[in-house]
């Protein structure tokens, strides 16, 4: 056995050996930056006269659209993962459970792999913007230059911290763990800084403010503090966690499908559960953050608000409802399958509540997806007396949408609580009373949310927006913050009636995790387009007009095709990055293959794959377990 001193020395050596990688990347990016510096130095006068450049074939706008979307999605993952990776590490540190530390390390492994690609796309985007939109970039540089410097410093700090955090993981165990946790904190701090600084540039384009006199730093700070800056910051922060969670879930889902050993199946089943949980956890407050953002947009400029919510972009919100609906259904479906598969014998006890939750979710989705203005033929419109249905038209306005969104969040939260309590029996004397109170509170909350929603039709919009919608959010929030600790207390003394068995989920659970990730990527592509398009023919809304040949909004079908393309490209990129990141695991997998005989029925079949010969058809269609 190696001595502790020897292991420490080995870790230090390993750490130092890896260090040159940083310098390699820095040198690589420095070389890439040289032409930009040269271009900036030599092309000052030319840039004054050139307002736009085009790219033959694809067009400058489309190229920037693809690269910007890829960069944003990659950045969302890179900034979201450290948040829950760090939380996971803290949980492992406090509970002394090694599996959490292992999971946090696995999250960080994915992060390091994606980090360089994110920076690469950031660089490409910068080059393209400088080259293709010199007029706009000159204006933004003039306005924000000091913040560019801050951004560079933050990026350097983030890079250095990430490398120390990742390569120092094994070295900083034991009494050095606290410092490693501190590094994780710094990593997140810098990451949030990296997100909010460029957010200010993009939000300034959408909601510019009058910038008074002052030095460059003062003026940049004034421009940063535009009305949609913080709403976008909060919305993106939460969305990044959701994206990161579901992508990690999809990664775990694929690894689960490919797993050959029992240990791997158990680990990736659990990782998939954690990924789904993180995604759901982030998804619960996300609609509220989105609502706040849209409120600020509306308040900032009625024209922009109507373009988004009532004008030609309004259909995107129906698509958004569909995607969110699939995400809610997918996340809940995964929870419910977790109950029936991981807790043997529990299926019958949970049939009725699952059915009730499913019906409520579907009814809510039906309301959320119902547009205010319906797609109807001439004959249908004549029968309806217009394109608003006299009865179902009431589902088309925000009062209805907010109500069902809150109910869906409540249902999803209760799905999680049900999963948490499954297979356990409360033994505390006060358990019965506590459960009765919880049921009562839940019923009152649901009724209150619905009553406020209906009442919202009969009060001025400002009362609904300022009080009723906020009250609905607070009611749902109250349920979450009271039920979570109460359930934890109840379960503290509960006895386990059925042990949870990991690694028993069917193959469709893995596909469900992948579907959730694809949905969230599509959602971000969709809403990214909506946010960007709401500026219509302005680079900077009301300040700098787009005078290029692309100063028009593409048709929704065209935009939808681009969103799908972006989603596809991103999935390819992420798959490639993860494939590279897990190459080292292949050798381990080969070794584990030899132990395959341990698994009854063999490994799970992939799509289209025939069930293995040992699989019994009678035990369930395409089921690969006992």
């Amino acid at each position: 056995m190696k001595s502790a001193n020897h292991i420490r020395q080995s870790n230090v050596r390993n750490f130092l050996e890896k260090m040159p990688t940083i310098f390699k990347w820095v040198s690589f990016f420095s070389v890439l930056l040289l032409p930009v510096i040269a271009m900036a130095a030599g092309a000052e006068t030319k840039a004054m006269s050139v307002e736009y450049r085009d790219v033959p074939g694809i067009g400058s706008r489309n190229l920037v659209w693809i690269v910007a979307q890829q960069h944003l999605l990659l950045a969302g993952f890179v900034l979201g993962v450290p948040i829950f990776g760090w939380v996971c590490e803290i949980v492992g540190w406090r509970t002394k459970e090694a599996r959490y530390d292992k999971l946090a390390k696995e999250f960080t492994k994915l992060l390091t792999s994606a980090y360089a690609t994110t920076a690469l796309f950031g660089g490409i985007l910068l080059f393209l913007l400088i080259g293709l939109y010199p007029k706009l970039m000159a204006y933004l540089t003039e306005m924000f230059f000091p913040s560019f410097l801050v951004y560079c410093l933050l990026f350097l700090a983030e890079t250095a911290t990430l490398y120390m955090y990742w390569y120092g993981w094994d070295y900083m165990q034991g009494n050095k763990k606290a410092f490693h946790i501190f590094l994780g904190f710094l990593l997140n701090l810098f990451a949030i800084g990296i997100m909010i600084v460029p957010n200010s540039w993009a939000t300034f384009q959408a909601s510019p403010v009058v910038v008074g006199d002052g030095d460059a730093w003062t003026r940049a700070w004034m421009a940063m503090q535009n009305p949609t800056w913080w709403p976008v910051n909060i919305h993106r922060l939460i969305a990044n966690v959701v994206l990161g969670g579901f992508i990690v879930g999809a990664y775990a889902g694929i690894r689960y499908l490919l797993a050959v050993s029992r240990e791997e199946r158990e680990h990736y089943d659990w990782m998939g559960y954690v990924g789904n949980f993180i995604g759901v956890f982030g998804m619960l407050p996300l609609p509220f953050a989105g609502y706040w953002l849209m409120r600020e947009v509306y308040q900032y400029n009625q024209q922009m608000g109507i373009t988004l919510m009532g004008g030609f972009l309004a259909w995107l919100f129906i698509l958004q409802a569909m995607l969110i609906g699939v995400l809610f259904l997918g996340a809940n479906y995964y929870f419910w399958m977790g109950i029936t598969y991981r807790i043997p014998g529990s299926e019958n006890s949970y049939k009725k509540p699952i059915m009730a939750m499913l019906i409520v979710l579907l009814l809510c989705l039906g309301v959320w997806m119902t547009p205010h203005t319906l797609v109807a033929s001439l004959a249908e419109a004549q029968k309806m007396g217009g394109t608003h249905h006299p009865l179902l038209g009431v589902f088309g306005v925000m009062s209805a949408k907010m109500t069902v969104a809150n109910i869906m969040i409540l249902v999803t939260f209760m799905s999680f609580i049900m999963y948490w309590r499954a297979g356990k029996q409360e033994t505390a004397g006060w358990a019965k009373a506590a459960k009765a109170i919880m049921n009562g509170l839940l019923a009152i909350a649901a009724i209150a949310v619905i009553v406020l929603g209906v009442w919202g039709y009969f009060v001025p919009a400002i009362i609904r927006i300022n009080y009723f919608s906020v009250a609905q959010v607070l009611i749902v929030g109250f349920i979450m913050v009271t039920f979570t600790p109460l359930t934890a207390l109840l379960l503290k003394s509960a006895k386990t009636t059925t042990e949870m068995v990991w690694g028993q989920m069917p193959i469709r659970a893995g596909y469900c995790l992948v579907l959730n990730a694809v949905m969230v990527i599509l959602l971000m592509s969709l809403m990214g387009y909506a946010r960007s398009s709401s500026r219509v023919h302005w680079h900077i809304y009301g300040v700098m007009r787009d005078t290029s040949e692309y100063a028009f909004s593409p048709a929704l079908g065209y935009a939808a095709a681009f969103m799908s393309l972006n989603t596809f490209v991103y999935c390819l990129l992420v798959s490639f990055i993860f494939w590279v990141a897990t190459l080292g695991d292949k050798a381990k997998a080969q070794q584990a293959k030899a132990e395959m005989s341990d698994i009854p029925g063999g490994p799970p079949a992939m799509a289209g794959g025939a069930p293995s010969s040992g699989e019994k058809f009678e035990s369930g269609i395409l089921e690969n377990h006992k």
Partner: protein
Amino acid sequence: MKGPIASGAILLVGVFVFIKYLLPLVTAPLPASLIYLYMTLAFSGIMLYGTMSASSLESLMGPVFRFLSGEGQSGTGKMARLAVLVLFPLLVGWQTYTSLAPSDLPPGENRTIHPAPPGEFVGLANPYQNNEANINMGKGLYAAYCSPCHGANYDGKGPAAKGFNPPPANFADPGTIAQLQESYLFWRIKKGGVGLPVEAMPWKSAMPRWEVELPDEFIWKIIMGEYDGAHQSPRTWEEDD
């Protein structure tokens, strides 16, 4: 009939009958796009619930897979399988053909009812005080100029309303003027149907361009009268506005 397949089929048929035939008994018929949406949701629900566990999956899909695989089938069963395997692709082909074949019917409309107003109308505030005299004057003007189409009860059912398709807006509906700021109404009344922007295609609005006949003062007062008469409030960002 028993079993999840029969229950699912009955449920689907029930939902379809309800939204297609029963609901129109109390309200207007639903457009096909909405029926399709609700049916998709109902089908998704059945599939999700039916595949929740190993046993439910077996109950729902087991007979289907066994039927399609032809395992142990003979006589009528075999013929039924053959019929399904032949008829199903034909059904898909027929559906594809009918949805793509040229038709003399106009396509379904995706009309933007509330397009964004032009910049010069954004942020305008009603310059006239919201008092009884102005509201009453507005109601009088409304009665003279607007009520023939929009109705004396502000419900879009004026005597001339039946002559228009789409019909005039119903101001009493909380989904119309209650969602908008006064400046929006000012734009729509002043510029009328011909002032609609490109995004509001196919520009189906018979609203006159009232700026030709009415001064701005009248338009602002009509707006006050409309909101008061329809028992609605304009969208504002300050409670005391």
